[in-house]
C-alpha cells in the first residue's frame, strides 16, 4: 500500500478556502487521480456542485460524467460532521459497547464533543485518519477548519494528547490523591464555588470514561501528526491579495516553519488580471451610434478599465511579495468568477487554473 498524497488547504476565514479545496479536488480527478475532498461547512451552492446537498460524514461520489476526465480519475467528497465523527470514534475505540454508550450519554461529553475548544480541529484529524487508512485514494484534499490561527489544525493532535494526559485529568479522575498542599485545596474549593459540584462530578466521570478510549485517540493523533509532517504532505496556503489576508498568510508561514512544516505554494483567490483595452481609439463616435450614447459608454468603460487595472497592478505586486516572503514558492491565481459555482462545470473554471492541470503563475514552472 502506497500512502496517498495529502494536500492541506490552509488559510484564515473568508478567503475562499472551501471553494479552492473543492476546485483542487476536481483538478486532481480530471488529471486521473482517485481523489477525495474533506470539506468543512461548504456554502450551499458549492455543496450542490459537489452533490453534497445533504450533510454526509462519509465520502460520496461526485458525478463527473459531464466532464472529460483522464483514465482512472474520480472524485469523492464528504463534509465533516464533528458530532458523528466523535461518536463513531468513541464506538470504535471503546473496550465494550456498554462503555461506549455510557460515555455517549455523559452530559459533559455531549457538550464537549461539539463545543470543546479545538474539537473541530481534532475531529478533522480523526476523519483524516480514516481517509489515510482507507487505501482507496491517491490524493486526499483537506479543507482545514476556520480558526483564528491557521496553524491550530496542525497543533490539534498534540493538544488533545496533552488534555488527556494532563494534570487536571489525573486530579479529577483521582481527586483523593495528592490534595495535600493548601494551595491545591483552596483551588478546588474555588473550582467548586465557581461551577458547583455537579459539573465537577460530570467532568470527572467524563475523563474516567475517556480513559478507556484516550489511548486510541492519542494513537490516531500521533499517526496523523506523522502524516502531516511526511514528504507526501503538501501545504497550500489560500489567501486573497488584500493586506489583511496577506498579513495572516505571512504569520502562518512563520508558524508553519517553526512546526517543521513546509509550504508547497499559494493560491491567491479573487485575483484580478489586467485588461488590455484600446482606450485611445474610442473617439470620435462612429456614424451608427449617437454621439451622447457613445460618449457616456466610452467614459464608463474607460473608468472601469482604469479601476480594474489599478486593482490588477496591486494584486500582481501582492503575488510577487507573497512568493518572495516564502522563499520563491509557486503561486497559483484564481479569478473572481462572474458566473456562479452551482455545478461541476462551473467549478471546472477554477480547477483549470490549479495544479496539477496548470503551472503556477509565479515561481518554478515545474
Amino acid at each position, binding site marked *: 500500500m502506497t500512502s496517498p498524497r495529502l494536500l492541506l488547504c490552509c488559510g484564515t476565514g*473568508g478567503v475562499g478556502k472551501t471553494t479552492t479545496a473543492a476546485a483542487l479536488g476536481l483538478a486532481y480527478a480530471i488529471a486521473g487521480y482517485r481523489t477525495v475532498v474533506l470539506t468543512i461547512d461548504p456554502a450551499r451552492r458549492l455543496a450542490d456542485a459537489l452533490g453534497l446537498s445533504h450533510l454526509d460524514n462519509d465520502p460520496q461520489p461526485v458525478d463527473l460524467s459531464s466532464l472529460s476526465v483522464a483514465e482512472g480519475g474520480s472524485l469523492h467528497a464528504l463534509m465533516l460532521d464533528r458530532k458523528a465523527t466523535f461518536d463513531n470514534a468513541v464506538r470504535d475505540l471503546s473496550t465494550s459497547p456498554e462503555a461506549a454508550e455510557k460515555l455517549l450519554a455523559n452530559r459533559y461529553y455531549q457538550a464537549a464533543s461539539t463545543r470543546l475548544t479545538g474539537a473541530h480541529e481534532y475531529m478533522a484529524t480523526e476523519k483524516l485518519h480514516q481517509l489515510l487508512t482507507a487505501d482507496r485514494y491517491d490524493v486526499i484534499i483537506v479543507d482545514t477548519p476556520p480558526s483564528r490561527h491557521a496553524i491550530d489544525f496542525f497543533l490539534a493532535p498534540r493538544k488533545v494528547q496533552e488534555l488527556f494526559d494532563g494534570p487536571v485529568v489525573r486530579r479529577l479522575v483521582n481527586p483523593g490523591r495528592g490534595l495535600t498542599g493548601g494551595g491545591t485545596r483552596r483551588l478546588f474549593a474555588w473550582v467548586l464555588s465557581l461551577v458547583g459540584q455537579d459539573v465537577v462530578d460530570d467532568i470527572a466521570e467524563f475523563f474516567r470514561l475517556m480513559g478507556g478510549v484516550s489511548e486510541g485517540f492519542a494513537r490516531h493523533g500521533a499517526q496523523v501528526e506523522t502524516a502531516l509532517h511526511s514528504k507526501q504532505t503538501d501545504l497550500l496556503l489560500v489567501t486573497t491579495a488584500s493586506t489583511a489576508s496577506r498579513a495572516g498568510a505571512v504569520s502562518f508561514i512563520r508558524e508553519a516553519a517553526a512546526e517543521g512544516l513546509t509550504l508547497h505554494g499559494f493560491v491567491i483567490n479573487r485575483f484580478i488580471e489586467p485588461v488590455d483595452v*484600446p482606450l485611445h481609439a474610442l473617439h470620435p463616435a462612429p456614424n451608427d*451610434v449617437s454621439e451622447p*450614447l457613445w460618449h457616456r459608454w466610452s467614459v464608463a468603460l474607460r473608468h*472601469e478599465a482604469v479601476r480594474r487595472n489599478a486593482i490588477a497592478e496591486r494584486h500582481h505586486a501582492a503575488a510577487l511579495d507573497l512568493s518572495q516572503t516564502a522563499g520563491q514558492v509557486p503561486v497559483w491565481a484564481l479569478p473572481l468568477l462572474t458566473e456562479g459555482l452551482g455545478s461541476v462545470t462551473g467549478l471546472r473554471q477554477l480547477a483549470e487554473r490549479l495544479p496539477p492541470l496548470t503551472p503556477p503563475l509565479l515561481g518554478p514552472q515545474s
Partner: protein
Amino acid sequence: MSLFNRKVLLVAGKGGVGRTTVAITLGLAAGELGLRAAVVELYGSGSVPPRFGLADRSFTPRAIAPNVDTFSLTPYECLDDFGRKKLRVNALVRMLFHNRVFRAFIDAVPGMHDLFQLGKINHLITTPSADDPPYDLLILDAPATGHGLTLLAAADSMREMVGGGLVADEAELIQALLHDPERTGIVLVTLPDELPVNESLELLEQLGVNERLLAAGIVNQVRDLRLPEQGWTEMAPVLEAREGASLVQLGRAAILTKERQIRAIDRFREALATRDVPTFTLPRIEPHELRTSDQPTLAEALRAQLRAPEAS
C-alpha cells in the same frame, strides 16, 4: 427602535465580510451622534488599534475618535478583572487564577472563555465600577471563528451544564442581557454577491429565538459601478466591430457584476424587511485598500442612511 438605542451590538457575519470595518463604522457613527461608544474585540484580537495608529491590542480602553474607544478582551484578563473588582479577592486567590491546573480546567469547560468575556461586557453595561467609562453602547466585533453567533449560545449552554455556583449566577445575568431585544442587537453583515448573501440568509434561518435580536443588516463593500442605464445593446456590436472583443468583454463583465450586485442587495433587503429590520449599505473603497482616512467616509454614509425617513 433606532439602531443605537441598544446597549450591545453584536456584529455577525461570515469571515471576510468586513466585520471589523463595520464595527468601527458603527462606533464612529454612534460617537458623532453624541453617544459614548466602544468597539470591543474579543479573544485578544487586535485588528482595530493599527487602523488608528495605535500599537497592539489593549485591555485598557483607548480613544480612536471623540466619544469612541476601543479595547480588546481575553478570557483571563476578564477573569482577573472580575476577581479584582467584583469578588475583591486577595492576592493569594488571584494567584490561583494563574495556576496551571486551574487554567487547564477552565480551558476544558466549553463556553467558559465566552462567558468570562461576556461577563465583562455585562458588568460594563449593568454595574460599571467607578473607574469604568460610562458607555452608552458596546459594539462587539465577534471572533473570527465561525460567524460570531456562538457567543449567544455560550451563556445558555453554561446554564444547562452548571447547576450552581458563581458561574451559574453570572450566566443567568448574561442571559438576561443577551436575550433582551431592548438592550442587545445583532448586526448581520454581508457582501453584495450571490454566495455571501445566500450564506447570510442561511445564518438568518439558524437564528431561531435570537431572530428577535436582529437590529440591522449591512451590505458592505458595495461597488460604485457607474454605467449608463441604456444603450448597451446598440453599443456592443459597434464596439466589437471597431475595437475588438476586449472592450465588449469588459463592458459585459461590468454589467453582469452590477446586475448581480443589485440582485444580491435586493434579496438581502427583502429578507430583512419581512422581519421589519432595516438594511444599510456601505461603499467599497477602490481601487486602493481601505485606509484610516476612509473610516469617517463610511461612518458618514451610514449616518446619512440612519437619518433617512425609511430607516427610522
